[in-house]
């Protein structure tokens, strides 16, 4: 008897859940416009914040999935999303597979060197050359004279350097190793630049930024690399790196912003290939003295210049998408610093405005924002 009652109760509960879910999805499907995007994990928290705020303001539902830059480019090329997001710009091969792609930088990232040496605070000086020698385990002790001459103020201990790196395939690794390849020829010929590296023996791999940070925080005398926002939020000591002007630059919102502003001098037109921008900004092209942080890069949203090439795209959706992009480049940027992201300098915003004006639906400009 009792069992029967329980069974009835369960059946009713099940029906209620299903009905509730059906009504919930009906409610969201009805009328309101929804856009979908997928890609890089680095800007995902910021994009999530934007979608929430934008939904509150306009009722336009934007869904974003952080699946990785590679996945973002793939889904964009296969036209299964309304926009993709990627940390490195598309390569020439990827670009020719998805003709008509527009690149829109949405935020700025920087890779920082973190370390854990007892009694040594943040701000140790490094050069790209030396970082590469440390990570290929050629320079293995903290009291190496080459490091000592860069850091006359601090006493570095005689201890073996424990190298920590990302074990998962990661855009951060790609940016970091591109920088090392440009700064150190031995690194370039032996390890190269890519999302996965065959690291030397006796190095430790951690999954994701949290994995590397945990390795560095737990192992004394270790060194690793993470995204700047991650180092700031977890209060891990990080180093200063020498830039192309010869200055040792501390990674901050300002120095990353300055690097991005300098890069804007050479940015391609929105609907051209952005492969030349590379994984990080090559500031060697800048002649004069500057304070730009050397390992800085954009994170991009990618979409199509002619939006009607996307299936399920309507004029209303095209309008909503371009407005959303316009909003994140202007008012949306104010949310960046609260989440430890670097907001775009005015030069880059202006460049992006021109790119957004290129976007059409059925050959007609969607918005001119004049």
């Amino acid at each position, binding site marked *: 008897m009792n069992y029967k009652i329980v069974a009835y109760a369960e059946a009713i509960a099940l029906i209620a859940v299903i009905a509730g879910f059906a009504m919930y999805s009906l409610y969201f499907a009805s009328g309101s416009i929804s856009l979908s995007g997928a890609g890089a994990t680095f800007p995902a928290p910021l994009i999530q914040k934007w979608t929430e705020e934008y939904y509150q303001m306009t009722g336009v539902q934007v869904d974003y999935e952080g699946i990785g830059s*590679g996945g973002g480019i793939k889904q964009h090329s296969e036209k299964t999303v309304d926009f993709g997001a990627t940390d490195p710009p598309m390569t020439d091969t990827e670009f020719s597979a998805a003709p008509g792609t527009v690149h829109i930088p949405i935020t700025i990232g920087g890779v920082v060197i973190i370390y854990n040496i007892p009694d040594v605070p943040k701000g140790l000086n490094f050069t790209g050359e030396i970082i590469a020698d440390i990570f290929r385990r050629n320079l293995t002790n903290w009291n190496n004279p080459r490091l000592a001459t860069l850091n006359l103020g601090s006493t570095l201990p005689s201890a073996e350097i424990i190298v920590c790196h990302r074990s998962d395939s990661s855009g951060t690794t790609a940016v970091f190793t591109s920088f090392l390849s440009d700064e150190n020829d031995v690194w370039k010929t032996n390890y190269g630049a890519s*999302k996965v590296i065959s690291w030397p023996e006796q190095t430790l791999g951690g999954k994701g930024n949290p994995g590397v940070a945990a390795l560095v925080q737990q192992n004394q005398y270790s060194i690793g690399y993470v995204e700047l926002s991650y180092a700031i939020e977890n209060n891990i000591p990080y180093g200063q790196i020498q830039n192309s002007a010869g200055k040792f630059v501390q990674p901050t919102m300002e120095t990353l912003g300055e690097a991005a502003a300098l890069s804007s001098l050479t940015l391609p037109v929105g609907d051209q290939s952005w492969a030349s921008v590379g994984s990080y900004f090559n500031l060697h092209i800048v002649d004069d003295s500057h304070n730009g942080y050397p390992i800085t890069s954009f994170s991009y949203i990618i979409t199509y210049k002619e939006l009607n090439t996307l299936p399920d795209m309507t004029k209303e959706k095209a309008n909503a998408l371009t407005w959303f992009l316009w909003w994140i480049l202007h008012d949306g940027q104010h949310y960046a610093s609260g989440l430890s992201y670097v907001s775009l300098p005015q030069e880059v915003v202006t460049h992006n405005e021109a790119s957004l004006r290129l976007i059409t639906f059925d050959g007609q400009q969607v918005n001119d924002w004049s």
Partner: protein
Amino acid sequence: MANQVRISRFLSSISLKLKTIFSEKLSGDIIFKIITAFVVCNVFVILGLMVFEIGGSSWLSIETYGLRFLWGTTWQPVPPDPSASPSFGALPLIWGTLVTSGIALLLGVPVSLGIALALSEYAPKRFTYFVSFLVELLAAIPSVVYGLWGIFVLIPFLQNHVYPPLQSVLGFLPMFQGTIRGPSVLTGGIVLAVMIIPTVSAISRDVFAAVPRSQREAISALGATKWETSKVVISYGRSGVIGAIILGLGRAVGETMAITMVIGNSFNMFSSVFDPGYTLASIVANEFTEASSPPVYISALAEVGLVLLLLALVINIFARLIIWRATRIAAGAEMI
């Protein structure tokens, strides 16, 4: 002509069968039989599809690297020289998987059997319920929690208080030499050992509990001590215990999340258990999501999955053989 006859005979035999099913005996029994048969078929379908899918996607890698994949020791999806082709070899992964699982068994099985014996032979009933509940709770903890516990609790403890004395005592053995690293093969093995304890001990306890009372009474009647009785219990339940160990080993070999977080993810043929290492499952977890190009890369990762599947198969066959031998010996002993 002959064919038509054959076909019509075949069809009539089918219709006859259907008739017996539907007209004569459409009882609950038959329906239940059909349902269970269908459910059982799912096992074959799922396993078959899995092998087919993984085999299909790893075909490119199998074609390119052949058997070299199994004993190669480099893993370079994107070589530094752009004109060079990528190279993949899984030996360090197989080595890491076998060693960590071996350590897990070495440490986990004695503890598990101890728990099982204590619960079935020694402990009072009420205590048994309580401890069994706790052990089963251990099995329900998600592996990522084990991983976090490994990173934040176990590694600092082992690194500071266990590994240095261990090395000073056993340092003469090559496998305990070298620099001590917190995230290492040994740490991975220890976390796996903890993770297999619930499986192995719960099943072993049930096996011991199933040993007939008559066996215990017979040996006690001969004047055996409690410990001697326990020995009889263990040998009586040998095949079941081996089965439990195999299930534990299966968990250890396939464990992904926890081991990835504590093993150090370093692709090399380590010689010391204090070195960081890598396992088959971890590299798939680490690299699969972003393995978009070159095409052979994702295929190589699929082949790692295939190797893992084959490894599990080999272990299972091996275990069946042991159980088969053990039961045969036991049967023979009974005859004498």
